[in-house]
């Protein structure tokens, strides 16, 4: 009886339409967010904040983006990495060439540019579906990366092609440093966290509003969606745009707050697949799942690689990596078979169990 939903009566539609309708859920999430903002920076050391939390949050943003497109709107995409790259390169351009703008604006501008690119590559989705569309998004993946690495304008004609990100304050000259190696890890973490929390909230809101329902309608049955007045092209493109915006912001944050430079290798097709796994394992069509999936996929190899050390075994690095591949493969299949709705559903099931505990019947 730890977790209760019975005995909660809503007296207005407003209450019933709320985000977290069960008080325990609400308090839990509020507590968690508070902990993420206050507790985590106090508890976590540089490794945990800088090398784990920051990339996990950034990848979770990208996973939310892909989840909007694939989980909600049903359009399979393998071009996530390229949309992230679009955000990163454009944010870099804005940050360096329009230096009077504060860095959060540059990052959002990167997202905006990525959204435009997303719309462009979303146009084929009107005519082609399913795997054909997936392959078409690969065109975006390869073409865009080629473009960014071959047009020197994107890197300000940098000789090496891998421009470093300068140390930026939150608002031009004011506020703490939030990017670059000089910035404190707490500042970078909180900066990323703010993005992640607001984007997650926005995604949840969109999912429960008109736009979210029209995405799901297109996903579940596009013909039926049309007869109730949903414009397929408009809806699909809005999914592409918003999805790419999320990915673009994630790509920019990756460059600005994590690896400190704009490196094409970070946005290769492997990244696209990694994020796809995150939403499969986290749960398609679930914002919570995007976070769970990102944490799981990112931490799995790191945990596996350290596991022998904790157990005091001496296993060579290559064997561990091969094992990691195998475990990853098996886990993907396992999840698809046992719980196609991913970790998010497992969490729900766990809650249901808790509701009955300790009296199962």
């Amino acid at each position: 009886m730890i977790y209760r939903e019975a005995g909660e009566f809503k007296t207005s539609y407003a209450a019933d339409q709320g985000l977290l309708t069960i008080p325990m859920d609400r308090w839990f999430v509020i507590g968690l967010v508070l902990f993420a903002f206050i507790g985590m920076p106090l508890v976590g050391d540089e490794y945990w904040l800088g090398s784990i939390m920051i990339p996990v949050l950034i990848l979770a943003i990208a996973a939310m983006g892909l989840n909007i497109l694939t989980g909600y709107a049903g359009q399979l995409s393998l071009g996530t990495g390229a949309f992230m790259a679009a955000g990163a390169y454009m944010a870099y351009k804005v940050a360096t060439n329009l230096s009077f703008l504060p860095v959060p604006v540059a990052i959002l501008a990167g997202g905006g540019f990525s959204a435009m690119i997303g719309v462009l590559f979303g146009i084929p989705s009107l005519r082609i579906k399913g795997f054909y569309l997936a392959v078409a998004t690969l065109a975006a993946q390869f073409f865009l990366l080629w473009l960014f690495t071959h047009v020197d304008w994107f890197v300000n004609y940098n000789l090496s092609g891998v421009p470093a990100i300068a140390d930026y304050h939150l608002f031009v000259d004011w506020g703490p440093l939030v990017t670059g190696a000089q910035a404190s890890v707490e500042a970078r973490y909180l900066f990323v966290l703010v993005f992640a929390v607001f984007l997650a909230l926005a995604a949840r809101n969109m999912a429960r509003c008109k736009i979210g329902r029209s995405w799901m309608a297109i996903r579940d049955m596009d013909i039926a969606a049309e007869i109730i007045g949903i414009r397929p092209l408009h809806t699909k493109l809005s999914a592409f745009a918003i999805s790419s915006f999320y990915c673009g912001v994630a790509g920019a944050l990756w460059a600005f707050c994590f690896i400190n430079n704009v490196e094409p290798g970070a946005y290769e097709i492997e990244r696209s697949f990694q994020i796809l796994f995150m939403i499969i394992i986290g749960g398609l069509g679930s914002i919570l799942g995007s976070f769970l999936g990102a944490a799981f996929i990112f931490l799995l190899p790191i945990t596996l690689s350290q596991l022998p050390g904790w157990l005091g075994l001496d296993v060579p690095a290559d064997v561990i990596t091969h094992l990691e591949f195998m475990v990853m493969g098996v886990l993907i299949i396992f999840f698809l078979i046992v719980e196609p709705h991913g970790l998010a559903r497992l969490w729900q099931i766990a809650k249901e169990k808790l509701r009955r505990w300790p009296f199962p019947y």
Partner: protein
Amino acid sequence: MKFGKLGLLAASAAMTVVSTAALAAEQYIPSLVYRTGPYASGGVPLADGYADYFHLINERDGGVNGVKFKVEECETGYKTDRGVECYDRTKENATIYNPWSTGITYALIDKVTADKIPFLSMGYGRTSAADGRVFEYIFNFPSTYWNQATAIVQYIANELGGTDQLKGKRIGYIYLDHPYGKEPIPTMDILAEKFGFTYDKYPVAPKSMTEQKSIWLQIRKTKPDYVIMWGWGAMNATAVKEATNIRFDMSKFIGNWWSAGEDTAIPSGDKAKGYRAATFHGVGKDAPVFGDLQQHIVDKGMASGDGSKIGLVLYNRGFANAAYVVEAVRKAQEKFGNRVMTGEEVRWGLENLDLTEERLAELGLTGLVPPTKVTCENHEGLSPAIKIQEWNGSGYEVITDWIPAMTQVTRPLIEQDAAAYAAEKGITPRSCN
């Protein structure tokens, strides 16, 4: 989000315990390796050689002045984010980093500087890091890509009979279409203008490294006098194979030092005879130190990996890299005392490193490691030079003496790029006087 984080915290406690276990009176050497993935064929011998030399020092000499080395590998798979994670996990008490990856190097340059840990990207990474006034903690001796490009052109000129003979010659430049492969292009532009040769660029897409047919068709058509290659991973072997397919004169095909591994030529076997590649260290197992290695490490069954890589080009490179690190630690101990050195102290050791032929002979490294002198200003070594090695069907043989780089061409470029970097990042270059 919920459960992920709770798990994180639980695991966090466990991990902190482990990472501090590396304390003790040992010089901690984190080694970022890639024994898996598309570049593993290069990563494995590099990692083996690096680890073996430290173990040799521990076994044979009992460490440096009693300070033993503790090598701990962290697998990156050549991926930048994994490299950053490995770095953050291991950086406490770390002596030095050398990730064998240009991508990871770029990601870590600022971080190591902030953390005051030296970084030796030996023959890769950011060329302009050779300017020690801007890049205080980054070293790239004994040579850089830009210097290597000039030295290879110098070698071609030597073969032709003088730099004036380069005029009107046509060179093909085939490279991995990646920041690494693009590094020497500015230098090549300058050299082409200076000596009056033309060169054609042939980028190889990283995702289709094994698809070079169209490139070699073009080479067959344009018939360049020489082809220079800047390759890595599967690209190298494919290029050599395609070159043999079109019956290109292998003695006119010169790889850089990352296209110099055995894996580059083995798939083509005898047909690749005559293929040349640059190197900045010796090849084979002739150096006296290999006797010690056999006695103290191999015979005791302590060799890294399966021990099959000893003497391979990339193994020797990892080996040489470790030798530099050991000597830098020794140098630092001269000044700071015989104990475990901190990152800052090792940096001092690196900046004052002076490996003469005599010293190398004492170490049994003659012919394997080039004499090197590093200063505060100059982090690429004072006399960058390469040798050219030739494939004989089953192994490489060095066929030239040291060919010096044209530092008068590259140094201004390096200083210019470093200054641009300093301006962008708001760094005030330190004074070295």
